[in-house]
């Protein structure tokens, strides 16, 4: 089952540039939450703070607290690797491991964490590929074709399967469709819709229609601040902040 997220007083910097300012937000379990806003507003940084990927950039730092389920991910003594194991992430550009077969890509998370039982791996790979709606397209070439030989849309679904295989409690998606055509995008969106039965999903998107289509809740970021956060319907029909309305209607950004 998915878990909820509670972010308190989150500030983030790259060197001296502050990219997130005083973010407070509660994300409900088993819902899809979209994060929208113009380029450079801190959307990506925000979700990278949710699984401690922000800190892998040199000179990046942050303050505040993030609670994911029962885990305070920035508590002292909390292992970043363990956090990332429990929170899956799908990136902007499909990034399958180029030297690995389709099977190995999906099994990578489990294998690299020490699971090696053949039958369990087989089952997990099939289950994850089915969840990602890719199984039927690749089941005959699982070990013959490399992950990067697939089409862009298939690669991204492969990356989703890879993230699901480690059974995360939360799935973060950083503009997962920005490199895909409308058909592939449609498939991923359908997938996101189905995933929320079992997962909490946070998705960053540039695409307003996409947010409107897939998200239950939407947060609007501008210049590092969370301007407005509400039900998607409310954000897109009767936003309470003028800046949200300007952005939604395309007056800037």
């Amino acid at each position: 089952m998915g878990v909820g997220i509670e972010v308190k007083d989150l500030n983030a910097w790259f060197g001296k540039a502050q990219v997130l300012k005083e973010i407070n937000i509660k994300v409900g379990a088993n819902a899809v939450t979209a994060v929208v806003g113009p380029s450079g507003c801190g959307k990506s940084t925000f979700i990278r703070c949710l699984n401690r990927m922000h800190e892998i950039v040199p000179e990046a730092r942050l303050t505040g607290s993030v609670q994911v389920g029962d885990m305070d991910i920035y508590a002292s003594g909390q292992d970043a690797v363990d956090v990332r194991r429990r929170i899956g992430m799908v990136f902007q550009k499909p990034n399958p491991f180029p030297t690995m077969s389709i099977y190995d890509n999906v099994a990578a998370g489990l294998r690299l964490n020490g699971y090696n039982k053949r039958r369990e791996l087989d089952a997990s790979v099939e289950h994850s590929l089915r969840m990602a709606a890719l199984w039927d397209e690749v089941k005959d070439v699982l070990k013959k074709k490399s992950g990067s030989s697939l089409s862009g849309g298939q690669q991204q679904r492969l990356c989703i399967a890879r993230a699901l295989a480690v059974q995360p409690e939360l799935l973060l998606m950083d503009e997962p469709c920005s490199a895909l055509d409308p058909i592939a995008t449609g498939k991923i969106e359908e997938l996101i819709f189905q995933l929320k039965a079992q997962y909490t999903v946070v998705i960053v998107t540039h695409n307003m229609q996409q947010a409107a289509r897939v998200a239950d809740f939407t947060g609007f970021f501008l210049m590092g601040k969370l301007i407005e956060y509400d039900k998607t319907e409310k954000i897109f029909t009767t936003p309470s902040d003028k800046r949200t309305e300007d952005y939604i209607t395309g007056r800037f950004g």
Partner: protein
Amino acid sequence: MPNVSRRLSIRRRVSNVCFIGLAGLASILVLAPLGLIFGYLVYKGIGSINWAFLTHTPRPVGEAGGGMANAILGSTMILGLGSLIGVPLGIGAGVYMAEFGHGRYVTFVRFTADVLNGVPSIVVGIAVYALVVLPQQHFSAFSGGVALGIMMIPTIARTTEEMLRMVPNTIREAALGLGVPQWRTTLQVTLRTASKGVITGAMLAFARVAGETAPLLFTAFGNQFWNLNPNQPTAALPLQIFAYAISPFAEWHRQAWAGALILIVLIVVAVSAVRFVTSRGNMQSNA
């Protein structure tokens, strides 16, 4: 107007042919020296290669026959020891520079590697003579391996660094995002993705030191007999070729040519074998 476009298209076709011709010529010029050297070696050396050459040790001066079997074995041993030292240290340094190091220290390591790359091989030989041979009081295959290993390090370190830098960051992030620890990401994802280039670097370094004579002169020293003990003076093909080539005997000259041919063939075989073994198991992106 049609005239203009026709003139243009003729010009374009002429320059196209010219440049393809130039590129072809350049590639021939690049391949020619290799072909000539190899052809000449075969011409001079093939006649002296026989079963005895590959299985016997050298005969005393004046006696016909004999071979370089002990030198072939010795070279294999010294190169093996050298690779055991040079490959892990070189790859380790490359990984450090590309993945873990920050700031001045990395610049210093990289600068040192570049300087080491430029150190003449005989200087490396003298250094190893002073640091290993003198304290031990005797020449050895081991000291020869140390000298060759040291010479392999900078090439391998720098190619490893370059190859790792070519791996997109998104690949590292994919692994880290799955909850894979940093060391495992580096070893099993980043390094594996770059493995082709890293292996090429290691093979380049290997092939380069395989023919080195100077650093072996006062480390491995050479030996007229079989030797399997890495702690004893050991024969090596380049040493044997050198000794025979400067000798006054026609028979030895012929054997030197044969030795040179064998050396090249061994390098080609070793490099191809490593490539063959390591290319299996890894998927190519367009497979």
